[in-house]
């Protein structure tokens, strides 16, 4: 079969690395491997130091990524999974497929990092993005009371969507249901993924869209456009910390450890801000790119720890579905 494809001239890239070099397979989400994501640069940078081939495999998004690994189980080809977030690590841990790490670093995370299985590689705050110039609600309660329209992602199909669910839960606890009920008339629509929602916002379908506080940095740096702003909420912003871990079943254990250590080094972390448009987990020696200093800093950080997030998510989802299905 492979010959068929080769014959058809479809196969594009065969590695320049010698055939006997070890291969490290990393499963990650699709936008990471995209030509505009961090993937190509990360691959080049790691291969420059590892005498190996880095094989990045893209799987839709974080949730689908975890499903893929569970599907493959102990027979997985992956040596490393990169791109889960703290809302998924509890479920990931339950699978027993992941191995502990020994990476230490001087993290620039909004929380103390103590997880012994997962290593963080970037992070950001969820936030609503709007066009500069208008008055914005200062928190969810004000948003719900206003006629500001928003477009959000479905927590069942998207990581930001799940993040928003837990944001409201973390901020309002038992009142979350009431907040969602009040928000339902502000919600223009709910999309499958981030791209659709962000696209709808740019088309003018809503006043605000759920994204990250770092989103304006893209417009500023890549498009020289300062018109997009993140809206600061005074109850605090929920953080997303993206992580990677080694599979227990890997046959490239040392190489995998080497990759995780590389991941928190400057060579990797420098790539993150302007390709993944997130904060690096470890601030590189030369600091953040120009433009990042303009981003808002939330008054406080909200984050349910992994165990709590895992526990909360089904209850929060039921509330959300109940409130919005009416």
């Amino acid at each position, binding site marked *: *079969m*492979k010959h068929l494809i080769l014959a058809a001239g479809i196969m*594009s*890239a065969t590695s320049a690395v010698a055939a006997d070099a070890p291969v490290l397979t990393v499963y990650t989400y699709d936008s990471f491997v995209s030509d505009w*994501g961090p993937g190509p640069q990360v691959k080049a940078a790691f291969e420059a130091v590892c005498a190996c081939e880095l094989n990045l495999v893209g799987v839709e998004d974080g949730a689908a990524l975890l499903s893929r690994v569970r599907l493959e189980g102990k027979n997985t080809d992956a040596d490393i999974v990169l791109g889960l977030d703290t809302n998924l690590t509890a479920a990931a841990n339950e699978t027993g497929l992941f191995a502990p790490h020994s990476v230490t670093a001087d993290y620039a995370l909004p929380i103390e990092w103590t997880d012994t299985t997962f290593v963080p590689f970037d992070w950001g705050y969820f936030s609503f993005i709007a066009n500069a110039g208008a008055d914005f609600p200062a928190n969810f309660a004000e948003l719900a009371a206003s006629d500001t329209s928003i477009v959000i992602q479905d927590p069942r*199909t998207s990581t930001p969507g799940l993040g928003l669910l837990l944001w409201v839960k973390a901020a309002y606890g038992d009142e979350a249901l009431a907040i969602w009920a009040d928000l339902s008339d502000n*919600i223009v629509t709910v999309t499958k993924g981030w791209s659709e929602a962000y*696209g709808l916002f*740019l088309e003018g379908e809503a006043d605000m869209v759920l994204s990250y506080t770092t989103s304006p940095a893209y417009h500023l740096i890549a498009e020289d456009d300062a018109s997009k702003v993140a809206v600061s909420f005074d109850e605090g912003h929920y953080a997303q910390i993206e992580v990677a871990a080694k599979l227990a079943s890997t046959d490239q254990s040392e190489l995998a450890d080497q990759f995780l250590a590389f991941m928190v080094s400057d060579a990797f972390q420098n790539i993150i801000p302007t390709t993944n448009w997130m904060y690096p987990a470890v601030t590189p020696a030369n600091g953040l790119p120009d433009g990042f200093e303009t981003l808002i800093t939330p008054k406080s950080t909200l984050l349910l720890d992994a165990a709590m997030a895992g526990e909360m998510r089904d209850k929060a989802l039921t509330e959300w579905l109940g409130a*919005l299905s009416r």
Partner: protein
Amino acid sequence: MAWRTKPLSPYPGIGAAVLVAAFILGTLVAVGWQADGSKGFAASDWVALRFTLKQATLSALISVFLAIPVARALARRRFWGRRVLIALLGAPFILPVIVAIFGLLQVFGRSGWISDILGVFGLPPIRIYGLHGVVLAHVFFNLPLATRLILQGWQEIPAERFRLAAQLGLSGRVMFRQIEWPMLQRVAPGVLAVIFAICLTSFAVALTLGGGPRATTVELAIYQAFTYDFDLGRAALLSAIQLGLTVTAAVIALKLSNQAGFGAGMDKPVQRWDSVSPIRDFFWIFLATGFLLLPLSSVVFSGLVGLFELPSLVFRAAGVSIMVAGASTCILLVLALPMAAAIGAGTKGLVEIAGILGLAASPLVLGTGLFILVRPYVNPSDLALLVTALVNAIMALPFALRILAPAARDVIVSHGRLAQSLNMSGRVFFVRIMLARMRPQIGFAAGLAAALSMGDLGVISLFADAQTATLPLQIYRLMGAYKMDAAAGAALLLLCLSMGAFWLLDRGGRRHAEV
């Protein structure tokens, strides 16, 4: 018809049907097999099922209801640019979902053209989100398909019938009842079933335009079972329900279909002598054109800017997509032609149902099942493009059969006895008579398959590695990287490629044979 013999054997077609059914059911079983423990059918799934049925029924009915006057108008009016218009009307159907949603919203959205015009008169913007939005989008997608299929029914009515009707001085209404209504009875149920089935598996459109979790469809529940709950048993169960619904719809449609053929007419151009005023016809043509082409033109406008600064990677992806579409079209024809011949020769039930299964198969289940099945033997990413081509072909199969089977039946009715009395073998009949007589339909089906494959994201995202990306996947990646302008440009490129492939193949088939 108590014919003892047929001019060709149905067995190759039955074989192809069994293969398709085994493929679809096999992947389903593979997914179910992998499950350990499932919370089964949840209460929320009932809600999803009800909504799915409601929107699919409405979408199918409205699409077909609107398609009838449009197809009738197109069938009996000759005007400059008619062919181009018919080709363009097919475009929404082959657009990638996400591109189509944005096109629709630029017309019907809160800051869309219609709302802008309303704003000039101090009226509030229209609100597209809700059940009506879902139905609107599905009609946008499927009206062209319904129109083309019904138009084809019209064109298959031998010109002699219309001559006769003209001679008898039949009024439009009588002509409709005597000639056109029987054709519609034959064609419409199948079209309804096909569109119903397409809409059953809707997911992103329903969610986005439905305005939230109220618009949860079964396909979304399957997706949720997979990625959110990792409950493979439930995913397989829901997928089986989806298949069951589609088979039910297909069986009902087959029962309702009056399968009588139209007999042979010599290859003379279709000409009609209706005396009906053209105003009503042009009203329908104008309406359909506006509804379908405005969102399309918005896709073109938004894409123009990005088109000239597309990264070269996009063109590489376009090359990959063209190859996938080519492979997919070949696979489709290899499966569909024998199946159409078998249906034409009277082996209906099994083959027709196997053909329609492709519509109801959840791409996610299909892809995942295939992934489970091939993984022990090969690295799935090596097969990414082949699998994508295969799955795209299976998805296009129901449409191809709708197009090919009636033509195959007519060829057998018209020429089968002569071929048999000449002691012509089934193989020769298939190649020299059937394929030759069906060229317009084969071109249409191949064009549709190529265009669909070009525009469909398919299962590539389950299989692809970093290097292999099709154009639709690349569009998603551009959007995911905030590059909305480039994505719009790439979408325009995709639209051109899809339309180009369709135009080329459809035209190739229709050379010599006037539409």
